[in-house]
């Protein structure tokens, strides 16, 4: 049985309960008190200490305030006469998205790991065994979604465990439990796929033709990754959410690269031998 997440971004209200629940359950340290100025997102990204991250996207796609906007005038609803050539192209809407490890079917991080620290556990989740990882850091650039990260103070790499410990006890992951809108759903992958399909259809029917499922072999889980066990319902192009549209499994190139290197080795060896014979 494979378990996973379905994160329906259309009902997310950006409350960050998942971020907090994840930190608390997994006893992850705080990220400091840095104010980024990036909307209300002071977490910025997933990291070794942050396994759920809520992205705050303002006015996606053209629906942006451009130019030098006078917010006071805006608040007073003075729509004509915006100063300095500013354009008001509709205030648009908020888009929130709670990001998390994608739990890839063919996981690049797992294939990269030389120690075998990263395994698939009995729930078919991608899990790092913290007692095996030696902190080589090779999984980090391998992940196509920037999820897994080394923690310098600790030395090892960390990411979402899909609350392995809670699942063993028959509980759902802390983030899914805490989510007040059911934006984060947890369950069997096949069941979630069915739910997602229905929801996307419903959104289409309600006049949101842009809704789609991210994390399938067609989009998000492409290029040999074979889809993700943790999927997302998105309302805009993946890049808006800082996600790649068409990522790939880097290890698919290892065999070809090795053959090319063997050919090169033969040629270079022969050339040196030729030069040495004089």
């Amino acid at each position, binding site marked *: 049985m494979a378990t996973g997440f379905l994160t329906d971004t259309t009902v997310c209200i950006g409350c960050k309960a998942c971020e907090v629940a994840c930190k608390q359950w997994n006893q992850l340290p705080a990220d400091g008190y840095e104010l980024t100025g990036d909307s209300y997102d002071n977490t910025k990204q997933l990291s070794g200490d942050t396994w759920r991250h809520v992205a705050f996207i303002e006015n996606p796609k053209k629906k942006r305030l451009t130019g030098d906007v006078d917010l006071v005038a805006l608040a007073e609803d003075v729509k004509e006469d915006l100063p300095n050539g500013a354009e008001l192209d509709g205030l648009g809407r908020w888009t929130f998205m709670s990001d998390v490890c994608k739990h890839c079917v063919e996981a690049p991080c797992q294939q990269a*790991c030389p120690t075998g620290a990263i395994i698939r556990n009995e729930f078919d989740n991608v899990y790092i065994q913290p007692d095996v990882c030696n902190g080589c850091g090779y999984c980090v650039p391998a992940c196509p979604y920037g999820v*897994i990260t080394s923690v310098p103070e600790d030395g090892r790499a960390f990411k979402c465990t899909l609350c392995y410990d809670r699942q063993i006890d028959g509980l759902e992951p802390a983030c899914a439990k805490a989510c007040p809108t059911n934006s984060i759903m947890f369950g069997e992958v096949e069941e979630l796929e069915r739910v997602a399909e229905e929801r996307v259809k419903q959104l289409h029917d309600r006049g949101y033709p842009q809704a789609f499922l991210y994390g399938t072999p067609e989009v998000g889980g492409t290029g040999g990754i074979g889809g993700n066990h943790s999927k997302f319902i998105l309302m805009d192009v993946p890049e808006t959410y800082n996600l790649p549209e*068409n990522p790939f499994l880097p290890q698919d190139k290892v065999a070809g690269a090795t053959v090319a290197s063997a050919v090169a080795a033969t040629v270079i060896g022969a050339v040196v031998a030729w030069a040495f014979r004089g």
Partner: protein
Amino acid sequence: MGVSGIRGSMAEETKRNGKPETSHRPETDPKRDDKNYYGIPPIKRAHWTWQIYVYFWIGGIGAGSHLLATIGHLLGWKDEAFFRTTKYTTLAAMTISPVLLIWDLGRPERFLNMLRILKLRSPMSTGSWALSVFGSMSGLVATKQAAEDGLLLGDNFASRLAKLVPDRLVSVLALPLGLYVGAYTGILLIATSVPMWARNWLLMGPTFLSSAVSSGLSWTSLVLHLGNWGESKTLGALKRAERVVLVIEAILIAASLIRMGKWSKPLFSKKLGPLFVGGTLIGGIAAPLVLLFGKETRERSILASVLVLVGGFLFRYVMVVGGRESADDPESYFSFAKKDGGRPEVSGEGSE
């Protein structure tokens, strides 16, 4: 402290135009690149620090030297100084390399976990194994050399045992592993999501290998020249080999750049461009070629060797550090990981 810092910056913000403004002004702040998600990199860079590119360089010299020693044996060379130089070089390189690699680990005390499993699709795994086995084999070969050179404190049991090592056979058996040590560093880079590296998947290994061999040749030639040890026949052979291998390296780098296309941008950045163009392309390949094809003097050979070694080091430096810049650039990754983007050949291929 934090609070006063925030107040200070807010006061500054308010001063602009004398109007209150939000802290985040998506397209009006010229200092910010807010493409995509606030310009935050969508993938994470590798943490690798200086130990890694120094290792790439030293490991390459060791691998190259082993190739030379083995070919020398196979051709029946007798030049003792040549064998001493190449074999001790390989031994030294294979002793330093693991130290650097372990140093770079987040948990150095667990380095042996690298050898608890062999994963053929992980170049980090195969490379660690190759380094361990090749390092041990080259150690055996060098020990025999040391025994013959009387470095094992005369005629004792250990030195008699060392002299029994079938060094030619061991060298030949170790050759594929040694060459892999020279090439896998490139394969290690391509098997990631970093666009600049992954894009050049076919040629990165061969390019690193050619650079390893040219560095090994230059190092050997440098030592023999400086010590006035080498037979002139050996020096001539090394020079001929340096010429061809450098030409091969130049072709491979040129082809790599073509293949990388716009994703090679970090190599020409303000910081890395001078090192790559000046240090590797001109200083490390073009200039040595001019020197090697010109008039034959000891000084010219020495200078050429030094230039090749420096160029080889800078090549690895810009490749590793350029990968950081590449990973930090959202535009670069998104254009790469796009349908019909940098990897049109991937779709379909991975699904079998």
